[in-house]
């Protein structure tokens, strides 16, 4: 059996980059087919392929790290850089939507009544459900930190409990936000107010769901003894992502819900 004389990870050949790329092709062309030919089959096929790719690719990363020992310190450092760069790209993604919001709200046009919120828009009271949502996410930031310390201290049961609580808080946020969306007195079609509100908060909500899924996978892995007190980068990556989602909410709350009301 050949052994490597370095600490880096030369990955096995994998089909998942190809299947992922094809999934992207099918989802995008499927979107066009839906618009022009009223058939959703191609788009749904693409989505299924995307889910299969994500499951198998990340399953393989767990196998490579936890079961094959390929995640040496230099490799882990690379993974850390990767996660930080990814989160940074997401920061820029949200920056765009904040730019759109401030562009329209700092200099409201005559069509809006020359004011912000625009004439005719009944905004949501920032001190009702949005404030509760803020408390929920801040609390989840505390519980995820509790989970991290529990893992580092080898406290298995506490780690499971605090991680489960974090996920529950995430689901509670999503539930409350869904209720708000349903009850809101304005829609996405209500001018630039509606567009900026629902696109910014909508993408944020999607990221809360993604973050909750990531944490849920970490919970399953913690239950199955994958994490050690010294090595649990998957969890750290999920926690970083979760803190990022929390910070985006704080900016949304201050800018759109509070200042913008």
């Amino acid at each position: 059996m050949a052994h490597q004389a370095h600490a880096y990870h030369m990955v096995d050949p994998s089909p998942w980059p190809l299947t992922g790329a094809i999934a992207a092709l099918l989802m995008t062309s499927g979107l066009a087919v839906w618009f022009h030919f009223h058939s959703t089959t191609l788009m749904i096929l693409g989505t299924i392929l995307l889910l299969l790719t994500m499951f198998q690719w990340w399953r393989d990363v767990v196998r490579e790290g936890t079961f094959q020992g390929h995640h040496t310190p230099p490799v882990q450092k690379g993974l850390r850089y990767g996660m930080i760069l990814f989160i940074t790209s997401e920061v820029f993604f949200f920056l765009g939507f904040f730019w759109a919001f401030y562009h329209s709200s700092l200099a409201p046009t005559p069509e809006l009544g020359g004011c912000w919120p625009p004439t005719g828009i009944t905004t949501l009271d920032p001190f009702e459900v949005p404030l509760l949502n803020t408390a929920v996410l801040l609390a989840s930031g505390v519980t995820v930190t509790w989970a991290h310390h529990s893992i580092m201290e080898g406290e298995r049961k506490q780690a499971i409990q605090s991680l489960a609580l974090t996920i529950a808080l995430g689901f509670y946020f999503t539930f409350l936000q869904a209720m708000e969306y349903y009850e809101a007195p304005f829609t996405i079609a209500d001018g630039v107010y509606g567009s900026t509100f629902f696109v910014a908060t909508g993408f944020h909500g999607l990221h809360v769901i993604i973050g909750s899924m990531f944490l849920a996978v970490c919970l399953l892995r913690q239950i199955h003894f994958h994490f050690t007190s010294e090595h649990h980068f998957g969890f750290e990556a999920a926690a970083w992502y979760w803190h990022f989602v929390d910070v985006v909410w704080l900016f949304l709350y201050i800018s759109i819900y509070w200042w913008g009301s």
Partner: protein
Amino acid sequence: MCLCGTKAKKLPVLASRAFSSSARQLKNKVPEAQKLFQEDNGLPVHIKGGTGDMMLYRATMTLTIAGTCYSLYWLLMASMPQKKA
């Protein structure tokens, strides 16, 4: 728990229950997984787990190829002019 071969000595029921009553205890199966995935059989990681891996890979690749053909079909449809009635 296999007690075959041992003299039938009646154990009190409680003595066989070795785990806490709060939650079902899972056994740490990581060492077994490590043995499976470190076996020197030349298999790439995406199919090293067994038959289930191969089936899922085949299903995924089938969808990939079928989906590609289907998207090319729609491309052909979209590039053909609409017949005016």
